[in-house]
């Protein structure tokens, strides 16, 4: 009998986390949901267990409590085959410009916490000789823009971290996948006017993650291909012009 594979979803109460967990469970994986809010995580875990007839457990984790990470990894019932980190905090750019504690929250939630946690798993995976790490980063990290550069710079850091990790661990057979969803219809973007062709549904992101991490073995994935084009154009604009644009 084949041993059931396991996946840890970090950010198990977010809409993308829920969709990704469900997609893995439906593919027959054991799912570990890590989240800060136990009730909310339990609510998702029960739902996923019913829908997928799967094995789903809840593990408490605060992405800002980095000192607890080692103990958290040790406390898991298994060292998962795959870890997907979907944690993100869009924050409020205007507030982040003037309120250092808010800016710190955005930077730490999008960069420090996810990077340190995945880095820790990378060490365990390297020791085991196998494993896949998926980081949900953002197109906002491709180039800093006036409207969201605090969030964007944290995501840029996360993207660079994943890139380095991939570069280092590829020879050891550890896969590192960077996902850039673009706009996604979730609670984080509720109330925003989003352009239809650029906006993915959470389950679309989930399918893209599984396809990249488990099926096709891609390294960097834009959930909707059109985002690659958009960001290539945006990144190609010379800085002396770009600095005067409002996009």
């Amino acid at each position, binding site marked *: 009998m084949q041993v059931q594979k396991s996946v840890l979803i970090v950010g198990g109460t977010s809409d993308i986390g829920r969709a990704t967990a469900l997609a893995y469970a439906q593919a027959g994986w054991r799912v570990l949901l890590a989240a800060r809010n136990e*009730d*909310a995580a339990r*609510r*998702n875990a*029960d*739902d996923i267990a*019913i*829908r997928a007839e799967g094995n789903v457990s809840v593990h408490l984790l605060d992405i800002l409590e980095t000192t607890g990470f080692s103990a958290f990894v040790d406390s898991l019932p298994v060292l998962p085959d795959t870890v997907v980190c979907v944690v993100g905090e869009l924050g409020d750019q205007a507030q982040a410009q003037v309120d250092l504690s808010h800016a710190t929250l955005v930077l730490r939630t999008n960069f420090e916490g996810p990077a340190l946690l995945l880095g820790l798993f990378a060490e365990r995976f390297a020791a085991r000789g196998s494993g896949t790490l998926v980081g949900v980063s953002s197109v906002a990290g491709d180039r800093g823009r006036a409207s969201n550069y605090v969030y964007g710079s944290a995501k840029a850091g996360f993207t660079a971290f994943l890139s380095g990790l991939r570069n280092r661990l590829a020879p050891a057979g550890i896969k590192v996948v960077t996902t850039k969803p673009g706009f996604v219809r979730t609670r984080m973007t*509720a109330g925003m006017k989003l352009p239809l062709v650029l906006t993915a549904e959470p389950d679309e992101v989930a399918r893209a993650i599984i396809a990249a991490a488990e099926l096709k073995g891609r390294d960097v994935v834009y959930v909707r291909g059109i985002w690659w084009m958009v960001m290539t154009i945006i990144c190609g604009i010379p800085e002396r012009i770009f600095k005067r644009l409002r996009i």
Partner: protein
Amino acid sequence: MTELSGWGRYPRHETELISAGTPAAIPSLLAERTGLIARGRGRAYGDAAIGDQTTLGSCQLNRMRSFDPVSGRLTVEAGVQLADILAVFVPRGFFPPVVPGTKFVTVGGMIAADVHGKNHHRVGGFGNHVEEMTLALPSGETVVCSRSRNTELFEATVGGMGLTGVIVEATFCLRPIETGWMRQHTVVAGNLDEAISALSASASASYSVAWIDCLALGPSLGRSLIYAAEHASVRHVESLRPGAELFPSSRRGRVSVPIDLPPFALGRVSVSAFNELYFRAGVITSGYPFLVPWDPYFFPLDGIGDWNRIYGRRGFVQYQCVIPISAARSTLGEILERITRVGTGSFLAVLKQLGPSSGLLSFPREGYTLALDLPVSRDVLQLLNELDEIVVAAGGRLYLAKDARQSPETFMAGYPHLARFQDLRRALGADGHLVSKLSARLNI
């Protein structure tokens, strides 16, 4: 403010639209506002799910809470879609006890409208199968009600159009099925009398419904096809369709109506031609049983996305009445004749036999129900006012989940338990607090 309408796209109203992220968030949302009503997927046709001031979207309350595979008992949050329940449980051999004509509805909406299916004559409405529900009351309290606990609240909430509280969770039993196929029998009825007789003769079937060709006139008024069906057993599938998958997968909407069609699209000639083809196809298959997957049998229109747009920007109303058995033949004949005479054609009308009622404001009662779609126009609205008089005179009533235009007088005449319902609403403090455009219009 957001402009909302029901599935018929008539009427349209401005309302504040908010959303409950978790069940725990509902009491405070409820406490902070008045003139509020909960909304599921917006499949009620008229103004039932538009808040007088605020509309509370429940679609994020979409978690399944528990399931017992032995008894089939399922507990879900109110915003869970029927389509999700079907997708998850049909392949495991379970089917909901009652399904309405579309699967794009929420469980909360199914209870609030006490929806009926093609099996109402056998098993009653959806509310009949709800064992227990959790309700957030205007007072901020959250209570559990069932047939043995908070009984009156339970009876008022089934079919109560969201006017007693916000439904948070519900528990009901799925029934076992051997396959995902329906074993269907088609009977051809040349006129309304034959259709009613055929429905009554097929009352022993689990499911039955008649599709009337609205444009057949004179002696063939009420010409229809009666579809009776059972869930097919494994043996049926093996003999009628050897080698077929036992649980055919739910299809995705393959086609959809991308734009609002212009008015002539539903002209008499095009509709007649459609109906003629539809009817002939039915006649060919009549007489012997054949297998149909559950999805097209129960939800034929769900295969066409946004079909409400065929009626154009002005929208349409669905007229659905129920007439007591004794008066059914003459009254339904008169209604059909009046509508066919105007010739602003519905494609088809649906005729069904209903069993006894359950909730205080539930639509179903023993009799026959007729439902048809009509594009909104001054003439149509005038015609419907006249039909209301016929319905009231026959002791019938109109379905609130379809209604966009009846008068308070018509409503009062059809719903004898209204006073009890209003008393309960006052006692709950729901009066003035939970208000939809429909309840304001009908003085509920």
